[in-house]
C-alpha cells in the first residue's frame, strides 16, 4: 500500500536576511549561504521572522543539524506538511551535520583575557568554555564569560550604521563616513582628533595605535572604562616603574590579606585566581589562610578564614595600622598622624595577630588591595608586600610583569581637551558608555556638546551611540579577529566563530579605516591561505602583529596558536624591583572619618549582573541571582541591619535617597544584609540606563551620578533618608538561616587534623560526616533490597532485582561539589543555562518565585549567636522574609550550589503518575519532557527542591506577554536571533512540563554513543576516563565541581566519593544522592579574636 503525496513546488524565500554566516573555508559562497538557509529551514524561518512558519512550529523545538523539521501537529490521516532536507551543493570541510566543532578563542577583559573553547553547531557558536590547555588558566571561566554568548545573539544589539541617528545602509554609510569623516581625518593627519578606547591588552591594537600616531601625528588617544583601577596602575608605576604591573599568583601565597579586594569575585586580580586559591585549600596539606577586610560581604569575604567588616574609606587606616605592626611605621608616619579614632575602633588585636601571621610566613604572604582603594593603600600594600618578601621573581606570590604598555590619559583629560578646543573630533570605541557612566568631573555631556563629530563604535546602541554623529555597530568578540594577552602576557588569538550577525565592525577594523588608504598593515600579506577570511581587515592586522611576536616558523606558530588557543612562550618578562623603593611621598590628604548616621559612606561596586552597565541587556546575567544578596534584575542599596534601623528602613525595597557630599542625589531601594560595615551602603553600578534595550529597560537605578571623579568609587559623607516610596525587588531567596540544619557543612583545619589526619577508626566521621542528624540516623531495615547499581548484572539477562531492569555495568555517573573551593560565583548557573536551553522568566516571574535555573546557589548566613539559641532568629516578618535578629562581626556566609542530586532512591520518581521521570540504567534521574503532564507532584516531593516548572511558554513568549497566553503575538519574542544560541541536542521545553538538572545527559549520551561507535565489535564500550564533563564543571573557575564515572576505577570521582569530607545532603531521608558535597574547611588562626567561632556555621543544630 504505497500512497503518493505530491508536494507543491517549494518556494524559496529570497531576499530575506540571513544570519547564518560563518568564517569557514567556503563561507559566503552562494552554496554556503544557501546551505545555511536551506539546511535549516526552520532556523532560517525563525530568523526571517515568518509568522506563518511560527504558527505551525511545534513547541518542542529542536535545532537539529542537517535535518529540517517544520512540524505541524501531525494529526492522524492528515499528512504532516512536507519538509525538506537541503544539503550543501559542495561539501564544507570538517563540517559533519549533527556534530559540533570546537574552536579556541579568548574573551578580552580589561587587564587580560579569559581563554576559551567555543562550541559551534553548523556555524553557530552555542557555548563557551574555559580552555584547559592554556598554561595559566587551565580551564574555567566566569559568569560574564559564560553569559557573553548571549550578547552575540542579542536582538537589541546595534544592528545598523547610523548617521546622526538615521539608519543608513552599510554601503551608503561607508561612503558618507569616508567622505564626511575619514577623508578629513586623514587629510588633517589626525589633528584635533582623539580616540577614546577601552582597556585592552591587544598587541595589535597597541601596534595599530602606535602606527597611527606615525601617520596621524595630531591624534590623541585616551582610555576610559569606569571600573579601571587607576590607583593600582598609578601605584604600580610609582613602586615598580612604568609598564610594569604587579600580578598576584595566588597559589604561591600561604597567607593572603585582602583589603577590600574581592579578588575571587568582582575585582579579579592575576590569572585564574580562583583555581589557584582553590588549589591551596586542600585540608591536610598546607592550607593557605585568607584574611579579608571589607565593607560588605563579597564572595572573597564569604570564604575568608577571618573577616573584618570595615567601611571602605577606613581600610586605609587598617593598612596604616598593619604597616605599623610590620615595622613600616616610618614610611606611613604622615598618615598615621591622621588616624584619629581608628586606633580604638579598629580591633587592635585583630591587626596584631594578622600582622604576626603574615610575618610568620615571610616570603609566602601576600596583601591584595581592591581596585577602588586609593593609591595610598596600594602603595602601602606594595611596601608591605615587599617587606614580607612577596616579590621574588617567578617564585614569589607577587610577580612584577613587564607588559610595556604606556598608560593612557583618562576621560577627565579628554574632556578638558575637548572643552579647551584641542579636540574636535572624537572616535569612541570603549565598551563602556561615557555619556552614561562618565564621572561628574569630566562634565562629559557638556564636553560632548562641543565636539564637531563623534564616532561611536559599539556593540550596543547606547547613550553615546545615540548621541554620536556616526554610529557603527560593533562586532562581538565571537565575530571578530583579535588578539589579547593574559595578565602575565600569554598571547591568545581571538577567533571569530561566525560572520558579524548584524554586519558590525571590530575595533581593529575601525582603527584600520583611520589609516591612509593603502593601509599600513596591508603591506604584510597574510600568506597563502584563506583569502576569504581577509574580509575582516582585522585578520591581516592580527597576523602581522603575530608575525612580529613569534620566532621561527610563523605559519606553524600561527596554526598552533589557533589550535591551542595561545602562543607558546609568549609570556611577558618579569621586572626586577629596586631593592627598596624610595620612600613614597604620600599625598597628605585628610582621611575620612568613620561613617555615621549623618555621614554615610556609599561604596559603588561593579555589578554582579551588568558589570559597569555593559551587560544591561543580557537577560541571563540580569536574572542570575546576585551571589550574596540574591537580587535579580535590579541593584539596591545594601545596608546592615543597624544602618537600616538608624535610617528607619523597616522593609526591603523602601526607597531611600542618597545625597552625595556635593549635593547630587539618587534614589535607590534599600535592601538589608548582614555582615556589612555599619553606615556603609553598597550599591551596584550599571543600572538605570535609558538606552538599555528591551531586556535592560527599566531595570535598577542609576548611581553613576554619585561618581564624582574618575575612579572615586567610595563616596563618604552622604546623607541618606527614606523617601517614603516602595519598590518591588526580586530576590530569589527569602531566608538567611540554615535553621540549625547541617546543610552546608564546615569545620576547621584543626578539626581536620584531629579527626581525619590523626584520627582512628571512625573518628573521621566527626569532621563533617556526622554533623546534624546524620550522626543519629536509625538503621535502615528494608523489606527488599533496592537496586544496587554497582553490582554486576549476573548475566546480560539477569538484573539485580530479579526483574527485567538491568544496570549499566560500564557507567554510573556521579558528582561531587567541593564546598571548600566553591565560592558561589554563579558561573555554573549560567553555563548550565547556556548548555541546557534554560529560559529566562523575567522579573515579575522571579518575584513569583519561578526562576528556572537548574543550579540554584543557596546562600546562608550563620553566626554563633544564632547557634546559641535557635529561636532567636525565627522571626517572621510579613512579606515572607525570615530575618535573623542579629548582625555581628562573627557572621559567616556559606554558599552551596544545589541542582538535582540524582538520588538513587528518588522521591520524585515514585509520585509521577505517568512515568515521566524514572531512573536510567546509568544512574540518572531522567526526565522525559514529552511524557510529562505537569502535575508538579515531583517538585513537591523533591527534598532538594531542584525541579523547575514551566509555568508559561517561557521559550515562546516575551516576558511581558506571559499572561496574555494565546492572545500574545505568535512570535512575541522579536528575539528570533536568540534561538540560534540554543543547543540542538537539548529539547527546548514547552509550557507545562517540569525540568531539572540532567547531568548534561546530552553530553553523556554522546560520549557513550561515541564509545560504542568506536568499539564496533568489541565489548569495550566504556567512556574514556575524564572525557565527559558537565557544563557546570567546565565553567567552575575553582574546579569545585567534579563529575565522572563511578564505575571507572581510574576516575578521580571515585576517590572524591571516599573523601572524609564527603557527605550527602539530607542523607537522613535515605535518598542516596549521586551528587554529594565535600565539607568546607576553614583555616582560622587560633590566636585571632573570635577564632573559636570560625568554621562552626553548621554546628549545633541538627
Amino acid at each position: 500500500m504505497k500512497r503518493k503525496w505530491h508536494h507543491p513546488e517549494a518556494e524559496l524565500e529570497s531576499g530575506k536576511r540571513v544570519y547564518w554566516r560563518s568564517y569557514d573555508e567556503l563561507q559566503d559562497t552562494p552554496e554556503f549561504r544557501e546551505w545555511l538557509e536551506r539546511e535549516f529551514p526552520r532556523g532560517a524561518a525563525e530568523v526571517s521572522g515568518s509568522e506563518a512558519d511560527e504558527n505551525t512550529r511545534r513547541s518542542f523545538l529542536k535545532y537539529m543539524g542537517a535535518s529540517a523539521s517544520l512540524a505541524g501537529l501531525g494529526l492522524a490521516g492528515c499528512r504532516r506538511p512536507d519538509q525538506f532536507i537541503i544539503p550543501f551543493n559542495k561539501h564544507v570541510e570538517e563540517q559533519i551535520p549533527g556534530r559540533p566543532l570546537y574552536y579556541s578563542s579568548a574573551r578580552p577583559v580589561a587587564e587580560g583575557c579569559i581563554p576559551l573553547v567555543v562550541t559551534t553547531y553548523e556555524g553557530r557558536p552555542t557555548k563557551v568554555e574555559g580552555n584547559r590547555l592554556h598554561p595559566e588558566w587551565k580551564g574555567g571561566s566566569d559568569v560574564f564569560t559564560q553569559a557573553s554568548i548571549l550578547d552575540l545573539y542579542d536582538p537589541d544589539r546595534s544592528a545598523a550604521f547610523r548617521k546622526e541617528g538615521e539608519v543608513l545602509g552599510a554601503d551608503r554609510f561607508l561612503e558618507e563616513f569616508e567622505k564626511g569623516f575619514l577623508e578629513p581625518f586623514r587629510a588633517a593627519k589626525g589633528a584635533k582628533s582623539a580616540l577614546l578606547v577601552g582597556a585592552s591588552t591587544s598587541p595589535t591594537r597597541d601596534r595599530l595605535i602606535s602606527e597611527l600616531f606615525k601617520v596621524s601625528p595630531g591624534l590623541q588617544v585616551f582610555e576610559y572604562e569606569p571600573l579601571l583601577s587607576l590607583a593600582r596602575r598609578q601605584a604600580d608605576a610609582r613602586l615598580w616603574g612604568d609598564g610594569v604591573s604587579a600580578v598576584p599568583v595566588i597559589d604561591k601565597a600561604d597567607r593572603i590579606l585582602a583589603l577590600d579586594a574581592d579578588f575571587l569575585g568582582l575585582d579579579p586580580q592575576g590569572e585564574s585566581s580562583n583555581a589557584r586559591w582553590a588549589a591551596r585549600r586542600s585540608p591536610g596539606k598546607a592550607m593557605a589562610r585568607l584574611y579579608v577586610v571589607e565593607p560588605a560581604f563579597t564572595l572573597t569575604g564569604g570564604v575568608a578564614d577571618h573577616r573584618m567588616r570595615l567601611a571602605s574609606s577606613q581600610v586605609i587606616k587598617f593598612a596604616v595600622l598593619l604597616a605599623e605592626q610590620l615595622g613600616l611605621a616610618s614610611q606611613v608616619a604622615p598618615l598615621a598622624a591622621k588616624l584619629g579614632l581608628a586606633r580604638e575602633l579598629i580591633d587592635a588585636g585583630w591587626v596584631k595577630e594578622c600582622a604576626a601571621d603574615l610575618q610568620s610566613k615571610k616570603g609566602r604572604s601576600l596583601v591584595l588591595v581592591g581596585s577602588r582603594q586609593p593609591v595610598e593603600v596600594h602603595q602601602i600594600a606594595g611596601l608591605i608586600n615587599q617587606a614580607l618578601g612577596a616579590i621574588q621573581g617567578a617564585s614569589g606570590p607577587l610577580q612584577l610583569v613587564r607588559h610595556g604598555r604606556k598608560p593612557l590619559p583618562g576621560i577627565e583629560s579628554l574632556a578638558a581637551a575637548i572643552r579647551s578646543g584641542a579636540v574636535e573630533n572624537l572616535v569612541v570605541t570603549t565598551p563602556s558608555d561615557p555619556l552614561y557612566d562618565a564621572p561628574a568631573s569630566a562634565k562629559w555631556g557638556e564636553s560632548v556638546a562641543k565636539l564637531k563629530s563623534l564616532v561611536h563604535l559599539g556593540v550596543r546602541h547606547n547613550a553615546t551611540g545615540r548621541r554620536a554623529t556616526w554610529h557603527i555597530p560593533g562586532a562581538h568578540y565571537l565575530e571578530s579577529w583579535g588578539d589579547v594577552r593574559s595578565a602575565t602576557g600569554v598571547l591568545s588569538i581571538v577567533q571569530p566563530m561566525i560572520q558579524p550577525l548584524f554586519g558590525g565592525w571590530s575595533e581593529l577594523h575601525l582603527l584600520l579605516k583611520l589609516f591612509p588608504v593603502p593601509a599600513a598593515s596591508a603591506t604584510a600579506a597574510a600568506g597563502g591561505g584563506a583569502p576569504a577570511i581577509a574580509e575582516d581587515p582585522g585578520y591581516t592586522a592580527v597576523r602581522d602583529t603575530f608575525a612580529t611576536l613569534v620566532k621561527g616558523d610563523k605559519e606553524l606558530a600561527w596554526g598552533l596558536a589557533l589550535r591551542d588557543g595561545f602562543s607558546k612562550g609568549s609570556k611577558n618578562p618579569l621586572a626586577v624591583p629596586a631593592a627598596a623603593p624610595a620612600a613614597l611621598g604620600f599625598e597628605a590628604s585628610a582621611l575620612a572619618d568613620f561613617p555615621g548616621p549623618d555621614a554615610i559612606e556609599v561604596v559603588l561596586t561593579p555589578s554582579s549582573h551588568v558589570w559597569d552597565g555593559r551587560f544591561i541587556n543580557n537577560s541571563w546575567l540580569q536574572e542570575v541571582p546576585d551571589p550574596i544578596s540574591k537580587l535579580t534584575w535590579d541593584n539596591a542599596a545594601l545596608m546592615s541591619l543597624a544602618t537600616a534601623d538608624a535610617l528607619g528602613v523597616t522593609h526591603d525595597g523602601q526607597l531611600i535617597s542618597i545625597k552625595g557630599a556635593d549635593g547630587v542625589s539618587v534614589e535607590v531601594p534599600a535592601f538589608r544584609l548582614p555582615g556589612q560595615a555599619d553606615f556603609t551602603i553598597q550599591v551596584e553600578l550599571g543600572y538605570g540606563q535609558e538606552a538599555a534595550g528591551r531586556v535592560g529597560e527599566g531595570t535598577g537605578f542609576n548611581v553613576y551620578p554619585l561618581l564624582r571623579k574618575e575612579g572615586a568609587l567610595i563616596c563618604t559623607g552622604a546623607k541618606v533618608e527614606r523617601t517614603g516610596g516602595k519598590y518591588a525587588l526580586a530576590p530569589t531567596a527569602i531566608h538567611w538561616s540554615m535553621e540549625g540544619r547541617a546543610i552546608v557543612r564546615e569545620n576547621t583545619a584543626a578539626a581536620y587534623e584531629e579527626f581525619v589526619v590523626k584520627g582512628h577508626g571512625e573518628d573521621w566521621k566527626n569532621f563533617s560526616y556526622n554533623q546534624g542528624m546524620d550522626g543519629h540516623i536509625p538503621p535502615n531495615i528494608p523489606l527488599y533490597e533496592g537496586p544496587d547499581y554497582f553490582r554486576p548484572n549476573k548475566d546480560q539477562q539477569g538484573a539485580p532485582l530479579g526483574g527485567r531492569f538491568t544496570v549499566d555495568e560500564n557507567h554510573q555517573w556521579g558528582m561531587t561539589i567541593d564546598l571548600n573551593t566553591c565560592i558561589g560565583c554563579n558561573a555554573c548557573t549560567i553555563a548550565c543555562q547556556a548548555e541546557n536551553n534554560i529560559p529566562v522568566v523575567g522579573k515579575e516571574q522571579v518575584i513569583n518565585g519561578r526562576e528556572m535555573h537548574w543550579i540554584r546557589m543557596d546562600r546562608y548566613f550563620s553566626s554563633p549567636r544564632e547557634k546559641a539559641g535557635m529561636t532567636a532568629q525565627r522571626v517572621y516578618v510579613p512579606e515572607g522574609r525570615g530575618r535573623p535578629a542579629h548582625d555581628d562581626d562573627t557572621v559567616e556566609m556559606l554558599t552551596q550550589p544545589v541542582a538535582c542530586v540524582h538520588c538513587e532512591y528518588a522521591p520524585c520518581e515514585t509520585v509521577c503518575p505517568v512515568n515521566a521521570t524514572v531512573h536510567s540504567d546509568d544512574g540518572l534521574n531522567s526526565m522525559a519532557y514529552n511524557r510529562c503532564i505537569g502535575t508538579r507532584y515531583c517538585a513537591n516531593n523533591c527534598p532538594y527542591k531542584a525541579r523547575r516548572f514551566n509555568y508559561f511558554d517561557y521559550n515562546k513568549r516575551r516576558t511581558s506577554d506571559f499572561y496574555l497566553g494565546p492572545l500574545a503575538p505568535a512570535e512575541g519574542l522579536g528575539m528570533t536571533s536568540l534561538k540560534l544560541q540554543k543547543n540542538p541536542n537539548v529539547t527546548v521545553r514547552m509550557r507545562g512540563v517540569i525540568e531539572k538538572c540532567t547531568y548534561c545527559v546530552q553530553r553523556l549520551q554522546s560520549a557513550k554513543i561515541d564509545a560504542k561507535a568506536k568499539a564496533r565489535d568489541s565489548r569495550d564500550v566504556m567512556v574514556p576516563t575524564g572525557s565527559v564533563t558537565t557544563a557546570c564543571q567546565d565553567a567552575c573557575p575553582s574546579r569545585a565541581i567534579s563529575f565522572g564515572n563511578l564505575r571507572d576505577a581510574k576516575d578521580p570521582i571515585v576517590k572524591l566519593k571516599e573523601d572524609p569530607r564527603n557527605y550527602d545532603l539530607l542523607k537522613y531521608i535515605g535518598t542516596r544522592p549521586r551528587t554529594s558535597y565535600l565539607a568546607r574547611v576553614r583555616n582560622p588562626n587560633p590566636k585571632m579574636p573570635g577564632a573559636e567561632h570560625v568554621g562552626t556555621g553548621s554546628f549545633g543544630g541538627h
Partner: protein
Amino acid sequence: MSTQPQVEQDLRGVAREPLVLSGRDYKWITNRICGVVENKQPLIWWLVAVPGALLSLVLLFTLVYLVSTGVGVWGLNQPIAWGWDITNFVFWIGIGHAGTLISAILFLTRQKWRTSVNRAAEAMTLFAVVCAGIYPGFHVGRFWMVWFLAPVPNANAIWQNFKSPLLWDVFAVSTYFTVSVIFWYIGLIPDLATLRDRCKPGLKKALYGIFALGWRGGNRQWRHYEMGYLLLAALSTPLVLSVHSVVSFDFATSVVPGWHTTIFPPYFVAGAIFGGFAMVLTLMIPCRAIYGLHDMLTPKHIDNMTKIIVLTGTIVGYAYLMELFIAFYGGNPFEVDAFHMRTVSGPYVWSYWAMMFCNVIAPQAFWIPWCRKNLVVVMCVCMCVNTGMWYERFVIIATTLARDFLPGQWGYYEPTWVEIAMFVGSHGLFLFLFAMFIRFLPMIAISEVKGVLPQSDPHYHPAH
C-alpha cells in the same frame, strides 16, 4: 412552625421519637416532596440558581484561561507547586464524603433517620466530586495530555506508574464518582416512578419515565433491589473510607515533613465526614425552611448530625494534637520545625489557628443541647466547620511546602485572582447543580421515608 409544640411534645415522649412528625401519611409525603419539583420554585431558588449559573460561567472562563495560558496564571511557585488547586480538590472531595457515608454507613447500621437526608446528601456528594474533579484535572501543566493517565495501549509502549499516589487518586476518585452515581441512581428509581406517575404526558413524563426504567414496585423487584442497594452500601462504605485515605496518601506517602505522617488516612476520613456533615446541614437547614420539610427533617435529624459533627470534630482535633505530639516525640527536627512553623513562627500561622478555631473549638458548642437545637447556632458552627476544613487543607499543603528541607528554597505563596475566581466559581457550580437537583429531582427519598413511617410496618395497628 405550627408543628413546633407537637415536636416539643414528641421530644418529651418516650424512648424513640418518630422520624416523621405530625403523623403524616404517605399521600402527604408524596405531595410534599413531589410538590417541590412540580410547583414553581420560590424566589430564593432563583437567587441561588442564577448566580450559581453565572459563577459557573466564571469557572468556565477561568478554566479556558488556565489551559490556554498556563498554570502560571495561578500564584504557584517553586517550593509551593500546589496551592489552592489541590486545597480545593481535597476540600470538595471531603465534602463529597458525607453523602455516600450517610447513605451507606448509616444504612448498614440501620440508622433509619438517614432516610430524610440521604438523597440530598448523595446529590451533594456528586456535585462536590464534580467540583473536586475539576482541580486535579486542570491543575496539570498540559491538560491536553491528561489522557496519559489512562492505561490504554499506545504506540509508545509506555504505561503509567502505578506506584504513584496520584494515579491511585485517579482511580479512587473516578471510582468513587461512578459508584456514587450508581448508588444515587438506584435509590432514585422508585422516586422517579412516583414522579412519572404524577406527571401528565409530555416531555417531563417521558424523561422521568425513561429514567424510572418502568419501575413497577413489585415485591419481586423490591427484593433484588433491596439486596442490590445493600450490597452497594456495603461496597460504598469501604470505598468512602478508601477514597479519602488515598487522597491522604498524596501527602502521607511523600517525604515532605508535615506530610509524611501515618495518621493522615484516619485523620482525613474523619475530617471528610466532619466537613461533609457540616455541608449537609448547611444545605438542608435552608431547604427545610424554604420547602417546609420540617416534618421530615426533624430536630432529631439535626441533633443527630450535630452529634456526629462534634464527634468527628473531636477526632480531627485529636489528630491535630497528635500530629504535634508525634513531631515533638519523634524528634525529627525537620518535622519539629515544620510544625513549629505551622503553629508558631511560619508565614501561615494565622491559617493554622483559623483552622483550629473553626474545626476544634467551634464544634464544641454542640455539647450543649441548646446549641444543637438552635438552628442559628447550628448554621454558624457548620459554616465555621466548612471554612475550617478548607483551612485545614490549605495548612497542610501551603504551609508545608513553603517551609521544607532547605531554607535556601523557602518561599511564600498567595493566590491570584484566577484561583479566587475558580474557587468562587466552583461554589457557584456546586450551588447551581444543587439548585437543579432540587428543581428536577425529589430531594428526599420518598420511598425510604415512607418506609420508616410507623404504619409501614405490616404488623402496625393504629389502635396500639
